[in-house]
């Protein structure tokens, strides 16, 4: 079990939720008593606050998967869970399990680049936040952290993601750990041909 702390939501409507319902959701999932209609309780079109914090004693990927397995995916308000980020997580896990980290890292690059295209930094934040670093190869961990370096100022959770990534590499005693932090910054911003 993993505790996730969610930070500032940039789109209050999208992330609006009912805190009381979430508490009960967390409690229910812990007991393994997840009713099919739980989505009704968690879906809300009201904005409670522009800022929200969510603490759950369950990995959100696992929760989403659990809801899907219970046949809830047709009715679940999946936008809350950042469907794209979760779908990518699953894809990456599957590719890693199939021993294909290079394909996995390409998926990560495409996801990151496409979200930059529409300045959807929150989607990248969510990926950094949701992905399980212990299920990723060194290549994917380094790739994800390095490819997000240049947008670090927009990625509020990147520092904590970097810590998770470092811990994961440390756990495996990976020799790639020194690659997490890149090779220095480019200060110059001038005109050149």
């Amino acid at each position, binding site marked *: 079990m993993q505790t996730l702390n969610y930070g500032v939501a940039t789109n209050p409507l999208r992330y609006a939720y009912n805190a009381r319902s979430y508490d009960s959701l967390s409690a229910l999932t812990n007991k393994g008593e997840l009713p099919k209609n739980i989505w009704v309780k968690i879906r809300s079109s009201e904005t409670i606050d522009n800022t929200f914090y969510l603490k759950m004693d369950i990995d959100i990927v696992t929760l989403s998967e659990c809801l899907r397995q219970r046949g809830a995916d047709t009715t679940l308000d999946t936008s809350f869970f950042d469907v794209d980020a979760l779908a990518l997580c699953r894809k990456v896990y599957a590719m890693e399990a199939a021993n*294909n980290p*290079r*394909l996995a*890292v*390409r998926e990560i*690059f*495409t996801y990151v*680049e*496409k979200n*930059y*295209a*529409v*300045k959807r930094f929150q989607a990248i934040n969510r990926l950094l936040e949701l992905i399980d670093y212990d299920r990723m190869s*060194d*290549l994917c961990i*380094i*790739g994800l952290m*390095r*490819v997000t*370096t*240049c*947008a670090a100022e927009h990625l509020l959770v990147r520092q904590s993601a970097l810590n998770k990534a470092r811990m994961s590499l440390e756990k495996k005693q990976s020799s*790639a750990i020194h*690659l997490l*932090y*890149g*090779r*220095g*910054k*480019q*200060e*110059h*911003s*001038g*005109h*050149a*041909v």
Partner: protein
Amino acid sequence: MLCDPRINPFDNIQDFAIAISRNWWPRLSRYQYHVGVFVRPSGQNLKLVHLATHCELLTDKPSEQYYWLACEGLHALEKILLAEWFESVAQLNSGCIPYSVIYDAQQCFDEANGYVNAGLGQGLTCATFLITGFLRFDISFIDSSSWQQRPEDAEWMHEIIKYMKNHYGPDWHDHFDEQVKYFDHSIRFRPEEVAGCASSYQGAPILFNQGIEIGQCIIGEMNAMSSSI
């Protein structure tokens, strides 16, 4: 350092290498160098990715017209990441990177399909495309703040922009005209210098004076190789 594919075949490139070629440019009576990258994406044959010209980021089959340079100073994982990234970016951006002598290291490959078109006149050259790609992985192989203007580069800029304007028609005149304003204070990263610096990089950004020497060394090696065949 420089490898001629007729002697040192492309098969020896494992994941990633720098590609460089040259063509005679009659208008300036000198060679024009061109830089790109050789990549071997997962399960695929070797490919050449290069910003061939205005709005043409191409993925081509390797040709013996190109020499190659290994990047010994990069970690194996970094080479794989660069290979996968350059190839995937070429797929995403094949027609949307304008040619420009104006380059801002801070704003490329962030947004519009991986590339930020920050405004009129902005874009990349073959050389700045390479610099930008490496920067995407936080690899600063040159210290661009040390780069300086060289008088002969202004002549080159005028020629290339004149050619581009003629070739790409009125729709793009504003884009190219805008660049003329920057000629007096623009610096140029020459393809041979960028290729050599990317290959020679060992962890510390390469300074302008070293870059010049490295670029001249590359030209010397190309001359020697082409005259020996």
